[in-house]
């Protein structure tokens, strides 16, 4: 039921870099979202788009709708998108594009660059920074071991009620601890960063063995301040580890979380 099938090639754009800093050498080892198109740069003025050719039979309007429903396809392409940007990351500031920005010709890519001169400012703001991710999890058992008082032994109504009360106290204590720990962690990490985002938490069913997620943060950190950021993280670790909190540092990432222009 596809509308009209398209043929020919389009240009998939991964992100934008300053034309002067960028070299296509950066992408020599990176495979793009489609094997047929090598990753290259399409420049206009001060800006260059990181792009590769894609067949419209796969990435055209009708085809991509179809392909997006194929999770294996999607995972492969999303990972390719990320890999290309990571290759660029080490060598130049870059503005990552959201997945699936496709143009019908390189002329259209150049036109896009001309029409978005503010990308130059975004690049300037990002220069010398990296995005780091910090997730924090609470090991609930650990927390309860530390904060629970002795279980009331014995049978009978009174012991039962006391146990109930204790469970409720423990749940309250955990809830307020989680809030306080998340707030303080985010505040400390933010103060060691240029910019910060607290993203939605992943739910316990899926974080599974990792514990209850209490922080899913992204931080824009100056490269020369990275050591300080890690110190702040270590300080949090020593402070909250005894309560059962574990931190996970990821990155450096392309600065996905810090390129949003108001929309």
């Amino acid at each position, binding site marked *: 039921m596809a509308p009209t099938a398209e043929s020919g090639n389009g240009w998939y754009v991964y992100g934008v870099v300053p034309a002067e800093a960028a070299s296509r050498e950066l992408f020599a080892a990176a495979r793009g979202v489609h094997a047929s198109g090598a990753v290259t740069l399409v420049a206009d003025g001060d800006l260059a788009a990181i792009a590769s050719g894609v067949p419209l039979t796969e990435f055209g309007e009708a085809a991509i*709708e179809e392909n997006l429903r194929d999770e294996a396809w*999607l995972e492969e392409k999303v990972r390719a998108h990320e890999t290309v940007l990571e290759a660029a990351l080490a060598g130049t500031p870059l*503005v990552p594009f959201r997945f699936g920005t496709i143009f019908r010709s390189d002329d259209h890519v150049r036109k896009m660059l001309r029409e978005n001169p503010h990308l130059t400012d975004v690049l300037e703001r990002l220069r010398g920074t990296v995005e780091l991710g910090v997730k924090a999890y609470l090991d609930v058992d650990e927390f309860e071991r530390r904060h629970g008082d002795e279980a009331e032994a014995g049978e009978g109504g009174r012991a039962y009620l006391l146990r109930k009360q204790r469970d409720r106290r423990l749940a309250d204590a955990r809830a307020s601890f989680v809030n306080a720990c998340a707030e303080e962690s985010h505040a400390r990490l933010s103060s060691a960063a240029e910019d910060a985002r607290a993203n*939605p938490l992943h739910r316990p069913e899926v974080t599974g063995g990792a514990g209850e997620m209490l922080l899913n943060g992204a931080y824009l950190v100056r490269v020369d301040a*990275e050591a300080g950021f890690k110190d702040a993280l270590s300080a949090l670790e020593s402070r909250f580890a005894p309560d059962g909190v574990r931190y996970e540092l*990821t990155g450096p990432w392309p600065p996905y979380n810090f390129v949003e222009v108001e929309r």
Partner: protein
Amino acid sequence: MSTPAQSTGRFPQTTMGGRPPAQLADVLERVLDKGIVIAGDIQINLLDIELLTIRLRLLVASADKAREMGIDWWEGDPFLRGGTALESRLKRLEAAAGLESGNGKGEEEEKGG
């Protein structure tokens, strides 16, 4: 098919030691949901992004490997939270995408075979 060039070696390496492959959830969260939105000629519009995130969620929801893959991030998405509104929206999205099997209405009967 190019050689694994070491072209980035001369740049200051800011990674925390050898970098393990990123968790899919972290990559999806960023590549699909963050990053700058620029209108392309063939743009995946927001509706489609929503649709595909929901579909990914459905696809992995029943799979045991959902956990180890860590595919969950949309669970925290305000858009995707909240019971019945989601259900009906989901139905509309699926219907819009022509996922219902032929006979109109997009009504979910049993998922026979």
